């Protein structure tokens, strides 16, 4: 019997939408699942995930679990997994999930597979599919330990829809602190406030490369506004200071798979492709006809972006 425990990701007192991808994964596994919500305010936040068909929504509403530090949350997650007899522990492959998942695995003596893009459950024998070599190949693997820990890709498991019903909410015990907790402290978090959708959740992403230069905002923002899109960037654009690092898409940065990805002045280095090539429709605008980005683009436009992008914005305005 496989029983799955999903670790919800909290942000400012709410459950992050990335958690819905882990729920989608658990549904594909086709086994009962529960959701664990940790941190101050999790009792209230738990109500956000009671309509997804979980057996239970577990809460550890305790001030000591604030900020989601790996050393702090791991003992309670591991204790909950053990005492509840869960054999698959799931996080979303966000920076939060990837930070904590290996620690949970080590505490449980479990194997950990990251960035899962597919799963098969053949009468309890679970195999996972995960990208390797920056997505140039996929490995089919299984975890050999009784308890398994996985992180699942938000770009491959779309957000689960609620199914109705009302999962019971239960409190779980907060575990004793690890000694390591005394040697780590949260200092601050800097977030770029933006009215735009999150890169992981956006239906459309408008992304710029180094070729956009200082025109990054001036050129991309009107197009993004028109399409209610998130704005992304290549490493080169971030390194050159044209775009802020949290916009980076790729091996460093976010892995995304929107319905429409518009790559503007992006050459298409393998590290960038690793973060966006699962997008449904890819458009590339670049003046170099040999740029590697055209190899993954559904629609390529060889043009000077400084002319093509304002023209595209104007054209879409006409249709809006």
């Amino acid at each position: 019997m496989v029983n799955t425990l999903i670790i919800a990701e909290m942000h400012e007192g709410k459950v992050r939408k990335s958690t819905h991808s882990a729920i989608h994964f658990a549904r594909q596994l086709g086994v009962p699942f529960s959701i664990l919500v940790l941190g101050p305010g999790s009792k209230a936040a738990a109500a956000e995930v009671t309509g997804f068909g979980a057996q239970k929504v577990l809460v550890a509403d305790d001030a000591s679990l604030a900020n989601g530090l790996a050393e702090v949350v791991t003992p309670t997650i591991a204790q909950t997994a053990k005492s509840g007899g869960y054999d698959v522990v799931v996080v979303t492959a966000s920076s939060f999930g990837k930070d904590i998942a290996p620690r949970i695995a080590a505490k449980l003596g479990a194997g950990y597979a990251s960035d899962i893009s597919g799963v098969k459950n053949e009468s309890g024998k679970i195999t996972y599919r995960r990208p390797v070599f920056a997505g140039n190949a996929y490995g089919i693997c299984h975890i050999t330990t009784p308890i398994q820990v996985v992180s699942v890709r938000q770009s491959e498991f779309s957000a689960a829809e609620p199914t109705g019903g009302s999962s019971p909410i239960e409190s779980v015990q907060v575990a004793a602190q690890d000694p390591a907790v005394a040697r780590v402290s949260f200092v601050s978090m800097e977030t770029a406030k933006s009215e735009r959708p999150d890169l992981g959740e956006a239906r459309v992403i408008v992304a710029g490369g180094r070729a956009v230069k200082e025109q990054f905002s001036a050129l991309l923002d009107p197009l993004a506004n028109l399409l209610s899109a998130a704005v992304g960037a290549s490493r080169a654009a971030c390194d050159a200071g044209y775009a802020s690092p949290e916009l980076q898409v790729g091996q460093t940065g976010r892995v995304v798979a929107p319905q429409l990805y518009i790559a503007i002045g992006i050459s298409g280095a393998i590290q960038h492709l690793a973060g966006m090539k699962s997008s449904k429709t890819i458009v590339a605008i670049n003046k170099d006809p040999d740029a590697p980005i055209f190899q993954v683009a559904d629609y390529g436009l060889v043009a000077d972006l400084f002319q093509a992008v304002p023209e595209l914005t104007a054209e879409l305005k006409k249709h809006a």
Partner: protein
Amino acid sequence: MKILVPLKRVADPDNANKVKVNAGKLETTGLEWKPNPFDEYAVETALRLTENGANPKARLGEVVVVTFGAKDTETTLRSALATGADRAIRVDSTDDKLDGDLVARALKALVEKEKPDLVLCGKQAVDGDSNQVAQLLAEYLGWPQATFAGTIKSEDDKSLLVGREVDGGTIHLRVTLPAVVSVDLRIVAPKSVKSKHTADSHAYPDGVRFAALMAIMAAKKKPLVEVKLADLTSDVALKIAYTSFELPPARKAGIKVKSVSELVEKLKSEAKVL
């Protein structure tokens, strides 16, 4: 400060020869090898923390590099020694007999012997892309961790102030040493690492340093020892097993459009995404 840096040899991701899949198996013949880029950033970070940037030749700490592999992976260690690392250890094994968990357990034993103040890892190897050794090692040691570091400031080598690059921003953590830190690519920007030995105004060249020819020669004389995996851990069972590999689903061949209006037309009527 004494720093241990684990290094992995990977297929050069920028080489035209990419990994191939043949009958469900990965084919690695003909690939060019190089140190994992994120591990090279970890070596650069370790060097910056153990020198005065204005006079990098004088070593003010110790950087020990370690790799897991057969004899031929020693070139990876020698290249790190040539850029300034002080000493190297090769744990004799091969990639097919290792996974992240086994490497972390072996590293734990090595850390207990070497007693470094800090273990600096690349955030992931660009072959397996697993992103787990640093976190596993920290838990096995009972040490604090700071993953995906984009900035590190040493506070008198007693604690580190680390800027972690996370989704949507940066989290600043303070970890008291000994600790495990994994680095992301912006750690090698000119002012990302502040050591106790270097003036805050000092700016490094962007990226990792290259070895001078003299240094490459000198690196051949630096200590490099071999350790048996069995001397570090008796449990060599793997927790993750790969049964086969496959190529990513092929994307339907794209088309070139001639104009912006044709592009908009296709996106509307063909792709139906507008």
